[in-house]
């Protein structure tokens, strides 16, 4: 199976029904995408397909087709991605850090479609991503800082 991951063609030997999450983590060694709930509740496994955030645990690898996959390992190829990463570091957003890859992928998609998000926009775009440490105050602030950068 051929996939396009972070701008590069990649050959993946995986069962067609294997979720993209596990193909990335176990088959390809891209462990930045995280397993949280395996059922689409938490957003830890958020990646982008053609720029749209999707749940890696709910996306069979066979369903990806020619869509371009962006994972946390490829986020800095995006200007918004870099601004978000810098804001995350500047505002010291993470506690345990486990959810932050998914948060960043969701936030990048938000800023690409809505460069000056309101609080309501942030709520709508980010509420699918659980931060168990509840760093929401800083995630919100960092999205705004990246938007202003």
């Amino acid at each position: 199976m051929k996939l396009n991951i972070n701008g590069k063609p990649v050959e993946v030997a995986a069962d067609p029904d294997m979720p993209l999450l596990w193909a990335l983590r176990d088959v390809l060694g891209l462990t930045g995408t995280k397993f949280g709930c395996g059922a689409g509740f938490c957003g830890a496994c958020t990646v982008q397909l053609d720029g749209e955030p999707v749940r890696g645990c709910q996306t069979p690898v066979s369903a990806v087709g020619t869509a371009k996959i962006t994972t946390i390992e490829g986020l800095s190829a995006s200007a918004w991605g870099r601004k978000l990463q810098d804001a995350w570091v500047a505002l010291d957003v993470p506690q345990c850090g486990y959810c932050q890859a998914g948060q960043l992928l969701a936030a990048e998609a938000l800023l690409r479609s809505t460069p000056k998000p309101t609080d309501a926009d942030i709520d709508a775009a980010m509420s699918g991503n659980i931060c168990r440490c509840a760093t929401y105050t800083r995630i919100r602030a960092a999205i705004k800082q990246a938007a202003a950068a």
Partner: protein
Amino acid sequence: MNAPFTPSRRQVLQAAAVAGGGLSLGWRFSGAKASVPGALSAFVIIDANGAIRITAHQPEIGQGVRTSFPMMIAEELDVDWKQVTVVPAPGDRSVYGVQLAGGSSATPTQFERMRRLGAAARYMLVQAAAKEWGVPAGEITTGSAMLHHAASGRSARYADLAEKAAWITPPDVKTLALKDPSQFKILGTRIGGVDNRAIVTGKPLFGIDTRLPGMVYAAFAKSPVFCGKLKSANRAAALAVPGVKGLINIAERRDLKTEIDVGLPGIEKLPEGIAVLATSTWAAMKGRDALACVWEGGDAAFQSSTAWEAAAKKAHAEGPQKPGYMNHGNAPAKLATAAKKVSAEYSYPFISHAQLEPINATAHVKGDKAELWLSTQTPEDARRMVALALGLKVEDVTIHMMRSGGGFGRRLMNDFAVEAAVIAKAAGVPVKLQWDRGQDFAHDWLRPGGWHKLEAGLDADGNIIAWHDHFVSFGKDGKLNPTAVIDGSLFPSGVIKDFRADVTVLPIESTLGWLRAPINNAFAFVTQGFIDDCAIAAGREPLEYRRAVLGTPRAIPIAEEFSGETGEDMKGTPYNTGRMRGVLDKVAEMAGWGRKLPPRRGMGIAFHFSHLGYFANVVEASVANDGSVTVHHVWVAADIGKHIVNLSGAENQVQGSVIDALGAALGQRITFADGAVEQKNYGDYPLARMDMAPPVEVAFLSTDYPTTGLGEPAYPSVAPALAGAIYQATGKRLRSLPLDTSLLTV
């Protein structure tokens, strides 16, 4: 190597490490580590190229300790933070002393110790420079990893003298001068987490990210009822799943209890089951599901939340198993003569840690050696438990401490490490064991639920003169589990002189454990709520009433005879009503307590002392006609002593604790049916999300007391303040967690 005046480099390094630690005889180097050039102790290594390497030895679970502890060392070493590279440590008590992320204990127990480690290394560098330059050590100044002698105009980098400093006889730490806090350049500032860049770029940091050559992935089929027995399994179906490489039968073990650090058995029993080995986690889990195991029985099969609820109600109606379990003064007599009596019943459920990184462990067992890669809060416990389970020597078990994707107390327990080790031993190759979310809920070490029937006596002015609690919670053999104690460390014991607690113990076989601000996270809801009840009965205002309850500023000793697990680290510690009054007044001022609010909007106030920290908060919330609650703002005032180690991390911990606690109060509950946990995933166990996270404003009061920890004590007082806000908004007092907002509809 030139060794002019010391018997051996290794002995010097041992001495240096001991001197640096000051408190532990075990902080020494192994022979191998002693050969590290520029090593001044196990914690400070100065490379010839100028890099300052500081070891972060405590388990990182999101509390920021990989940043805050090196900050303490760097401050006294007198280097700039940007010159520091933080390096990880393995789990090895013999080198690093206690390595434990629990009880918010790291900062209070090690703040001075870490500073002295840095100061000892600086001392050795200064002495080396004095010798080299032939000048008095007292004339040498330092800063930014440089040594200066003003009179002779000489300067050197730490790196230039590190090799020589390693030979200096280490100082007696008692004579070491520490910096005056007014000179702090790193401590008390905002320093970002050392792993932040790696986190935002997706680098492998966590236990779950471990990948080893030849590693197989494992899922473990075990009974959802704790220690149920395997009746049947479709092994052929599992083996037919593409990618499944083999099955391993795991036998139940009940011989694994051992002395560990955290006041509970680290593993109750290893349940029997079948480990599925595969080429991916996905295949292993598919294979596990294909087994379609049928289980029967199990020690916990009797467990039922409905039955427990009925038993608690019955106990409250008919009387306690253990009358007078705790008895200070004479509460019954005071109640009999009280001008007014107030009574109420409170309850709270089991809750789960629900840490986001599901439980996993990677193990490789080779002959008489085992190596594990763990997200754990207690690496030394894991080491001992694995050694016991495999019949190995403790020193033959190596623990690689990985970053934890959340702990909250779950990873104080190392049942998963034992499972992985046992499976890996049978597999003969490296194994990564992965639980799924359902197993994470099913086999957690839960915060126990509890029920309180309270009665208070008020005097003619409405002041509380007696407090009587009948506490129902869980344990075994008629004894409360350590995570469900009621003891003298818990307010208002001590503050209210006539205090009595009766106890009834309900039996449980599932595992109970420590969860963020254990015990306190439940009791604060009860005690602060009941203080509101008393205030209302007395016709008094909640803030003023709380001031009256606290009374004149004084230090009340925590009764030692009742100090259980919550009191363990508080022995000899007073409950300082003045410090509590300080945070209470501060938070009221921050929130503008008493402001006029629109209809169906209210404010609640609460305080609680736990983990040596004094916290008060105000919650402002509104209640819609359909009962839904919106939290608009939370204010927190905290007194954790003189210094805030890392202002950025500290504020983050408090804000996170508050929002976490709101999430728990508004929806989290674990229930049992037919012996097993009913909740399977975050769909039926809601965590706080962005759209419900209010602004949280935090103020730290600096008081003249030792600095204490922050991972936990901000949590307990949130739920009662929210309940207070709901009461003010609606006139309805919700006395059961999670708060049933359907009762608030109009």
